[in-house]
């Protein structure tokens, strides 16, 4: 089976190309079968590969062809499969298939059914290439490919210019990060002479020692790419806007797969990051600050999808925190469980929006518990996992991250003492997570009904929701076979107190949410309606005013100066030359005006000057 791994990205790719070429002329049933079926087939192959891999245990690589060869530079279309890849492949094809199945019903009434599945399949193909690539250049291909598909899908409903602006922002902001990453590639290639990930990491290890400058710069540049793609500070601003796309798109791209590519990249090149402990520390800090910022913002949003978007940013913050403290497996574990429960939440939100005439404001919903029972249970389970309530999948992964942060024993700088602080910050995030996720549940599904649903989700929506519910519940018991990929981490040996706090914090959050948003018995209005409270709410609501900041310091000056220069100011130099020629032409043509007196005078003066000059010279 392993020699057929090239089929995994090829199937969705072929389906996508066929859908593009037929341009919507196929019957809807066939489009649905091709769109969801191709991803389903890939998932089956991944399953078979995974089974085989459990026995084999050694990495497998396959070169299809050499992409470009000049001198030493010869990256190939080559795949590299190890346990990390298998985990990523399972998440992408498994969750991806469920989301595709869901989409076949969700998008049923859309006139661009075929275009939708063409883009979705193309996305899956690019994402698969990203995680299967054996060299950074092919990874970059997948990386840019998913970016373009994200652009196309965010702006899928193209008639509204707001969606277009959101998709452009998503692409250009992540491209800033991509550029940093590409620079990292160039740096690594010029220093190490290869882009093949495994040999490159070995070369890095033998060439540099921990703390050298060049690996630090290279790691920093790769981090730039990761930060852009995974919507972390300071490049996180695109993700909330990207919710403009269809909801299954948000579930697949902006929750389960693409946004976690940055986590994958860092995990994949962890050998390099280990050589740069300061950058690794930065990864943890970026994660911490992002998770706090996004959690505060999520608490203040009113749009169901934007709440989930900020929540995604926050949860990826946890993954970065995990990577930063060296808990690689915990980071990937959280990536997987997050893919389950966040896809579940997004698909649940999609079902709510689908059944409520495209209403997205949570304050116009309410009382949906009895009216949309399947969706209610999905949301409840998803929120429980998101809040990391005990025994849900999110609990196991987040607990590992927090304990690893607490136990961080660095050797230099701030990493000596910062561990407990990271843990405490993570706990603040955890309590906020519990509050905002159950705020959502209580407002949307309890209280009085404000909008009546006009339909119920059919089986193609209900089945993925149910399966994801199960995965969100039991996903925490999966044991990821990542031991051979990452350096071993010591077992957690923290006191019961620390563990107890970690467990009870989310429960307290749920309790607060229950008191505030269900019982209305906590007098929070006194604070939220004060001027300070309002200012803070607005500040948090706007995502800490980051958009405004970028608009003022980057976008406006750029477009302003570009518009000012539009008329090609360099031409003024050449126009100057033209004017000079015209001026001297006018001056000289005066001398030939046909006036005899003028000729005679100038002849006399000319003779005088000539004779004087001759006399002076001789």
């Amino acid at each position: 089976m392993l020699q057929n791994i090239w089929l995994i990205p090829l199937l969705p790719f072929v389906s996508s190309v066929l859908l593009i070429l037929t341009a919507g002329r196929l019957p809807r049933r066939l489009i649905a079968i091709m769109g969801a079926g191709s991803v389903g087939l890939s998932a089956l192959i991944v399953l078979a590969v995974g089974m085989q891999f459990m026995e084999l245990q050694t990495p497998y690589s396959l070169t299809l062809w050499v992409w470009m060869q000049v001198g030493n530079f010869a990256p190939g279309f080559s795949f590299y499969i190890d346990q990390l890849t298998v985990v990523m492949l399972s998440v992408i094809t498994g969750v991806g298939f469920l989301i595709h199945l869901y989409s076949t019903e969700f998008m049923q009434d859309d006139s661009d059914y075929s275009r939708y599945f063409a883009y979705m399949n193309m996305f899956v193909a690019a994402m698969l290439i990203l995680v299967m690539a054996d060299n950074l250049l092919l990874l970059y291909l997948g990386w840019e490919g998913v970016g373009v598909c994200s652009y196309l899908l965010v702006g899928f409903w193209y008639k509204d210019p707001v969606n277009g602006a959101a998709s452009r922002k998503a692409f250009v902001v992540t491209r800033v990060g991509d550029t940093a990453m590409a620079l990292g590639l160039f740096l690594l290639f010029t220093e190490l002479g290869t882009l093949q990930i495994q040999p490159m990491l070995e070369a890095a290890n033998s060439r540099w020692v921990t703390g050298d400058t060049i690996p630090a710069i290279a790691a920093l540049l790769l981090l730039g790419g990761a930060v852009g793609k995974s919507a972390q500070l300071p490049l996180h601003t695109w993700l909330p806007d990207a919710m403009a796309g269809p909801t299954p798109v948000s579930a697949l791209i902006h929750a389960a797969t693409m946004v976690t590519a940055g986590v994958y990249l860092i995990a994949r090149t962890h050998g390099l990051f280990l050589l740069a402990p300061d950058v690794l520390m930065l990864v943890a800090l970026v994660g911490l600050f992002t998770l706090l910022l996004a959690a505060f913002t999520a608490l203040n949003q009113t749009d169901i999808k934007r709440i989930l978007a900020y929540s995604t940013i926050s949860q990826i913050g946890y993954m970065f925190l995990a990577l930063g403290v060296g808990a690689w497996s915990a980071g990937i574990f959280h990536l997987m469980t997050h893919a389950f429960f966040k896809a579940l939440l997004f698909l649940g939100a999609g079902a709510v929006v689908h059944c409520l005439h495209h209403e997205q404001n949570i304050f116009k919903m309410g009382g949906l518990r009895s009216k949309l029972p399947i969706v209610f249970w999905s949301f409840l389970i998803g929120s429980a996992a998101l809040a990391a309530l005990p025994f849900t999948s999110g609990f196991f992964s987040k607990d590992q991250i927090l304990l690893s942060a607490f136990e961080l024993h660095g050797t230099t700088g701030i990493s000596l003492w910062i561990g407990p602080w990271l843990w405490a910050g993570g706990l603040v995030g955890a309590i906020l997570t519990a509050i905002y996720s159950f705020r959502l549940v209580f407002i949307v599904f309890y209280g009085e009904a404000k909008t009546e649903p006009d339909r119920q989700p059919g089986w193609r929506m209900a089945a993925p929701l149910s399966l994801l519910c199960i995965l969100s519940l039991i996903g925490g018991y999966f044991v990821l076979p990542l031991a051979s990929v990452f350096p071993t981490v010591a077992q957690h040996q923290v006191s019961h107190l620390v563990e107890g706090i970690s467990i009870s914090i989310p429960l307290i959050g749920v309790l607060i949410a229950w008191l505030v948003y269900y019982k209305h018995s906590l007098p929070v209005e006194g604070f939220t309606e004060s001027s300070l409270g309002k200012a803070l709410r607005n500040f948090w609501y706007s995502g800490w005013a980051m958009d405004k900041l970028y608009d003022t310091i980057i976008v406006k000056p750029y477009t302003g100066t570009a518009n000012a220069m539009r008329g090609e100011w360099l031409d003024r130099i050449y126009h100057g030359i033209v004017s000079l020629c015209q001026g001297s032409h006018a001056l000289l043509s005066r001398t030939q005006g046909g006036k005899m007196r003028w000729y005679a005078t100038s002849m006399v003066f000319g003779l005088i000057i000539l004779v004087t000059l001759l006399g002076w010279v001789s």
Partner: protein
Amino acid sequence: MSSLFADHILSWMIAVPFIGMVALMFLRERSWVLYTALGTTLINAALAFYLWMSFDLIENGQQFVERVEWMPTFGIQYAVGVDGISLLLVLLTAFLPPLCILSSWESITTRLKAFMMLILLVEGAMLVVFTALDAFLFFMMWEVTMIPMYFMIVLWGGPNRVAAGLKYVIYSLTGSLLLLMGILGLSLQAGTFDIQALSQFSYSPNSEFWIFIALFLGFAIKLPMLPFHTWLPDAHSEAPTAGSVLLAGVLLKMGGYGLIRFCLPIFPEMAHSFAPFVLWLSVAGILYGGYMALAQTDLKRLVAYSSVSHMGFVTLGIFSFNNEGVEGAILQMVTHGLTTGAMFLIVGQLYDRTHSRSIADYGGLQQRMPRFVAILSLFAVASFGLPTTSNFIGEFLILVGVSYQNFAFVVFAMGGIVLGAAYMLWMLQRVAFGEPRTEAARKLTDLDFREMLTVTPLAIAIIAIGVYPGPLLEAMDSSVTFVVERLAEV
């Protein structure tokens, strides 16, 4: 018979367009003119393909060489040949004209015969420029290419065509004059016009500087490099579609080709000492072009400024003096010919419908023209160097090459790539998405079969090279190595 064909394949390729021109003179019927012109260019495309297939990849010198004494008193020969560097440009030159003719099928309504003859004349002259082994022949045909382009602009161009044509001619003539002085400066000392011999002669030290400058400026104006680029947006935007395609697709490439063929091998020391200056200017051009493109309101001017940005990469690659950089630069020339040519073709198809180049007159084309938008999007993402498109290969190789020189160039050039995404997507948004902004944009019809036939070969070529550039890189590898080794001797 076969040897008459196989031994003189280059002369045949050069002769075919001229034979076609003569044939056109005797035709009156519109469809006859069109099919004859198309047939002529297709024959040449087939010959070019044959040339490529019979090209020896190992050989680093000139192949298919033909030499005939022309003006023996002055040491001037008719001498042509191809090496790996010229092969790629010959292929490009043969590939684009059929598409230009297809694009003019309906849009050229007046003086069709003359227009077709001019296209063939450009093709013939360009083929000589890229294959000439004699500097005099090279210069003569360099001049010949200018004239048909001038007439295309002033006779079939847009509203501001006369001024644009004049500007083009004045810039070109200035460049040609410098080039002529440079070539004479070489030949008078070396006593020959043979390019190979010119590069082996050692010139008097105090003349070297001036000759290099003259040649360099001549090529830089054609390329065009910042700050000599200001003729380009005007000429491009006023020229008819086929003219823009030929201008961007092949004519600009003469500049880059000249740098590789003359400046580098003849004056390696000078090239080395000028390199920092040229590299900085290239980076400035990349950023400047991208910056200006964002603000344009005219579709063709936007593409023209993106051209300036892309050609900055070409000089960046050439002056990195290694295989990666130079091969990337040549590939970038080819790929720029394909994508920018494609951009002009597709913008021209829009212009044919509404006679407006203004971005503000469109919007929401996705609704009425899904095929058009699909193709436009492909060319747009190719233009900002998305992996799997040919631009990515060119730009990436160039950046690898220049990263050996100084990493700062890579940083700035990558900035240009971000700008590329910004202006191309902004254009795409305003043209293809949202709601139509004018009545005319509401009534457009999608691309028909002929129009799809015009752009599809380019789309296929762009992706094919992007995924599997191997054959092209192999074809030029040994010739580029030859040039690079000469530079490394210094």
